[in-house]
Structures are given as C-alpha cells and as structure tokens.
C-alpha cells in the first residue's frame, strides 16, 4: 500500500460513522466518481458494522493506492472474532445470523472491485477491499 493509510479501532457504532467519514474523505481525495464514492462508503459501512457486530470489534485501515495506471482506495477490516465457518453460506444473499437483511457481506463484494477475505474459525476474519478510479 502506498501513501498514508489511517487506522481506526472499531468498538462502537460511532466508530462505524468515523470509518464512513474517513473513507469518504479518501474517496474524494483520489477523485472517485460520485457513484463510486457512495459505493465504497456503503461497502465500508457494511464491513465495518460486520467487524463490530459479528467480529466483536476490530480495526479498520484505509489508504490510497496507486498501481501505476490507476489510483484507488484500499481498506482492510480485521477482527479477532469467531471467524466464518461457512463462507459459501455467508455470501448467500439473505443469509444472516444476526437479524439483518443478510446482504451486507455479499452486497459489499458487489460494490467494490477487489475483495479478499481470510478467515479461520476461532481466529478472526480479515477482509481487504479495493476500489479503483475508472
């Protein structure tokens, strides 16, 4: 990751709002279009809330990226929670264990360009997403 990345500990609902504000600021700074800004902010909001609700809190690190041709924004969400036992199930639209709509994880994947997830039961989950400028 190049450029300055910033880190926010997510332990309360207010922290999710701070993550959203940080991501919006970064998205504006790398000149994402308005639609892409909204998409990446919404994805960050979903994933940060997952970190809080299912991961029991964790941290979010966000910063600009540049692969030489395009600029973008990369965000990593990490928690030391219970992990995800069945990834296929978790990515199914409408499946939830927490009373939500069951669209957060799968929806977030559709909102970004790159989506990497590493999870192990009992060890936590780490998700890295990237959104590139078009």
């Amino acid at each position, binding site marked *: 990751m190049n450029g300055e990345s910033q880190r926010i500990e997510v332990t309360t*609902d207010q922290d999710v*709002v701070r993550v*959203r504000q940080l991501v*919006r600021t970064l998205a504006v700074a790398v000149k994402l279009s*308005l*639609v892409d*800004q*909204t*998409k990446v*902010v*919404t994805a960050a*909001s*979903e994933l940060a*809330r997952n970190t809080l609700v299912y991961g029991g809190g964790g941290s979010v690190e966000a910063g600009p990226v540049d692969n030489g041709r395009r600029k973008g924004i990369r965000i990593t969400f990490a928690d030391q929670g219970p992990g995800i036992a069945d990834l296929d199930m978790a990515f199914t*639209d409408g499946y939830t264990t927490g009373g*939500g*709509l069951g*669209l*957060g994880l*799968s*929806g*977030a994947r*559709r*909102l970004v360009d790159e989506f990497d997830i590493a999870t192990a039961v009992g060890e936590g989950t780490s998700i890295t997403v990237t959104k590139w400028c078009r």
Partner: protein
Amino acid sequence: MTLSADEAARFAALLEEHEDTLVAAWTDRVATSLRGRLSQAELRRQTSELRRGFQQALSGAAQDLSAESAAELRAQLSELSTNRARQGFSATETAVSVIALKDAVLGILGDGASLRDYVAFSSFVDEAALFTFDSYVRVREELIADQAEQLLELSTPVVKLWEGVVAVPLVGTLDSARAQVVMERLLQTLVDTGSPYAIIDITGVPAVDTQVAQHILKTVVAARLMGADCIISGIRPQIAQTIVALGIEFGDIATKASLADALRYVLARTNKKVR
C-alpha cells in the same frame, strides 16, 4: 505524601497571614495563563474565595481533599470547573487556576521553610487540581450528552405537507437510536393527524446501507399496519445504484427521486388538483 495536622495548621496560618500578597500573585499567574479572557476583578474574587476555601480546609486539619473540613473547598472547586467548562476554557486553563497556588505559596515562603513541608502542601494542591480536572471532564461530558439529545430531537421532525400527507425529512446518519425516534414520531403523527399518507425523504442521508434500509423498511411496515401508505423519496442516482448493487429490495413500496415527485404522486392518487 500527605499533610500532617501540624503542617496543615502552619500552612493555614501562612495563607491567612499573607492573604493580600498571595491573592495578588495567584491572580497574576492565572491571568497570564487565561490571556485576559476573564477580568482581573473576576479572577481576584475567584482566587480569594479559593484561598479562603484552602485556608478553611487546612485549619480544619485536612490531610487530604476527602476530609470533612475540605467540603467547602470541594464545592468551590467543582463550581469553578463547571463555570470554566461552560465558558469554553480548556482543561489545562482550568487546572492552572488551582496549580498556580503552588507558585504563589512558594513566593511567600520564608527561607526557614522545610522542603518536606512544601512537598506535602504541594501534593495537597495537586489533589485539588486533579479534582478540578475530574469535575471539568464530568461537566463537559454532561454538555455533550445534552447536545446529543438535543440533536436527536432536532434532527427528526415530522412535518405536515398537505392535508392528509405527512413527511419525515431524514438528515444525517440513521442509527438504531434515531430510527427508533423517527418511527415513534411518525406513527404518533399518523394517529394525531389521521393522515393516510407518509413520505420518508432520504435526500439528506449520505449513505444508504443495509442497516439504514432495514430501519426504513421496518418503519414502512409499521406505518402500513396502521393503515397509512408510505412513499420513500430522495433516491439520488448514486444511492439507487448502490441499493441495486447491495441487492436491497423495496418490494411494492413506492419510491421517488424527489420530495416534489412524491407529493405529486400522492395528490394524484387522492385526486387532488394542484394549481
């Protein structure tokens, strides 16, 4: 290190004997740190009151701030920090008003004073300063809590738009607490006005994620149970695309791009002519 009864009595005598010099030096130091934001006369009044508080506490042989004779002093300190916090002074500027006493006392101490005495007295003042600090933080937290509550009240109005049409313009972040307030207000207004239509306008909501959508959907369902129809307006292009990508379905709930569209739609359904 705490004050012995002996030391406390000595310092009480000292505070009384050098009252004028002490208050002047003390006021001076505080005034420097506040850079003229409080008048000299006001500061002088505060410091001489505090001096009296300290003297009273010490002559009552207070060994620390929790002593009974220090009750008056504690009250003065919390009043001081309340005022400072409300007037917008920083925590440092507030604590300095108390800590400056140490310098002032050092100035009037004769050569014969023992270091041990001064350190004991100094730790007593430190305790007072920490107490001030604590009350300052408490007052600020109360202020913030009050403001958050006011903001919650402010940010969720339900307005009557037309005969039989109420609207809820949502602005900002829609968390669970606000969603609850919005739902309660809306449902109550529906009963009070007997309106068959409610418009929820989300123009001012920066990002609609699944949680926001779920809150809105629940509100709509609740309103329907009461026999009112809900229309969601203020769906901007970027929000529409995000909602589609997320896979959120609003089902058969009517959605419109602007509040004006929503109102026109409702009026058309109720066959009212707009001139």
